[in-house]
């Protein structure tokens, strides 16, 4: 087993992915404070916007073969409420907190970044890849030039870690290069895949597909991108076992995020982290 330890972007090299563990409310039903620190190097919050968002109508989520499709619509309490009610609790975990930001315009992202100055937040993850909102989100991901501008502008006001979460569709390589050249510290590869299910033969649910089904696809992206960009890549897509994590490292990731697997069983990440530590003898 090769030793990847010196190459981790953070340690333990597991993060909780945005939108798959809420805002931390029930985390401690499954983890002791010590276990949180032993398992996760970073916690990425649900997507936060300037204004509160109520989210989409039901059905919002459905199962696909070995995957999930969701169209939550970035339901969140808005940045003010988030800071007031949730952030303090999250910072108490003593794990690096990254806030996943969602905006419709570049200015929204900048305003959001300003909100987190001096709050103790370690980093920002710019969500330019949500497939479930009318404006913003994935629309950015088709325009590498706009992404470049976005990262530059946020970089001006934000000195902490700055990650960009890519969409797995569109001109991914160009977007990754745009992030690299405009000052992003890492890219997260990737968000969900635009998908669709027909429920009960009638209702059409359009959303983003996540889970084991997409793992071979995102793994390939990480493999390709890691050969083309030099900033670290955080792998994210379908991770549900220690082998999955190792596969991402083999393909060039420097850390990973776990999403859907946390919904299946919150304690899976704990087991994965333990297994990895044993493998790495750390």
């Amino acid at each position, binding site marked *: 087993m090769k030793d990847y330890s010196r190459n981790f972007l953070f340690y333990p090299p597991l993060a909780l992915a945005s*939108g*798959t*563990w*809420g805002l931390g*409310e*029930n985390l401690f*039903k499954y983890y002791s404070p010590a276990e949180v620190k032993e398992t996760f190097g970073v916690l990425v919050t*649900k997507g936060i916007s300037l204004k509160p968002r*109520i*989210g*989409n*109508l*039901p*059905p*919002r*989520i*459905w*199962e696909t*073969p*070995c*995957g*999930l499709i*969701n169209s*939550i619509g970035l*339901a969140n309490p808005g940045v003010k409420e988030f800071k007031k009610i949730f952030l303090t609790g999250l910072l108490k975990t003593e794990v690096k907190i990254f806030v996943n930001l969602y905006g419709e315009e570049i200015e929204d992202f900048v305003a959001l970044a300003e909100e987190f100055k001096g709050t103790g937040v370690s980093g920002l993850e710019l969500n330019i890849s949500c497939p479930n909102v009318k404006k913003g989100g994935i629309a950015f991901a088709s325009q590498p030039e706009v992404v470049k501008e976005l990262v530059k502008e946020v970089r001006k006001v934000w000195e902490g870690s700055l990650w960009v979460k890519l969409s797995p569709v569109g001109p991914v390589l160009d977007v990754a290069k745009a992030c690299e050249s405009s000052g992003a510290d890492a890219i997260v590869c990737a968000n969900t895949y635009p998908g669709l299910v027909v429920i009960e033969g009638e209702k059409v649910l359009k959303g983003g597909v996540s*889970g*084991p*089904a997409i793992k071979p696809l995102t793994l390939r992206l990480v493999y390709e991108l890691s050969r083309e960009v030099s900033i670290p890549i955080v792998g994210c897509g379908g991770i*549900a076992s220690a082998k999955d994590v190792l596969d991402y490292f083999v393909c060039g990731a420097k850390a990973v995020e776990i999403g*859907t697997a*946390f*919904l*299946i*069983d*919150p*304690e899976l990440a704990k087991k994965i982290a333990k297994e990895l530590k044993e493998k790495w003898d750390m």
Partner: protein
Amino acid sequence: MQKVKIILNKKEAPGIFLMGLDVGKEYTKKCSPGQFVRLKAWDSFDPLVPRPFTIHAVKDERLYILYQVRGKGTRFLCRMEPGEEVEISPPMGNAFPQLKDYVLCAGGVGSAGFGFLLQEAERGSYPLPKKFYYAARTGELLARAQFFQNFSVPLALITEDGSLGKKGLITDVLKEELKEERPGAILACGPLPMLKAVAKLGEELGIKVHVVLETFLACGEGFCMGCVIPLKNGKYAYLCKTGPTFPAEEIDFERL
């Protein structure tokens, strides 16, 4: 999720099974009527997420669920044998509300959760319902009728085809009986069309109705925000966080 041993997996009615699990006393002590557990009985990502089932009954270190075979997940479940293991989540969701002067209404396996409620009611930790209306399409689908008969609460069986108990829909019987003696509240669990009909009846008769709802649950724990229930006030509730039992008057059944 923890692994627990199956002690029973018995067909109770066509397509309906009773599963007993040795979860330990520590576990059963934490359970309340109205809560559910998530179960996984397959070593595969298809189906992907554990399936939710209401706690049907609890005895010492044992927990029971009553379930209907619907799709892949429940097909896996019903093929399990005593002695084998399944994975179980902690108890989830909220307990049934403590109601006064109320009746129970169940359609089909919607009856499941009322077993535990009646057990607790007899033990005194829940108010005793005045009556339990239990309906199904046919008599043989009234799973666990025998078990429900063991409690001191009067049990009214209702079937669409009249093969057992009164003939008709549950709302037909309720309409008749509740007019005479109006209860303080109705706690109803069953298929959505039934819940809508009972809610409407409650509105007409001025009786507060509580409905136990279902949606697809990904996490059951408030993490994913997927299990959204539209409310009349325009907001959304999450079934796993605020439910699964809701005051019927708050639900926007049109958008559900």
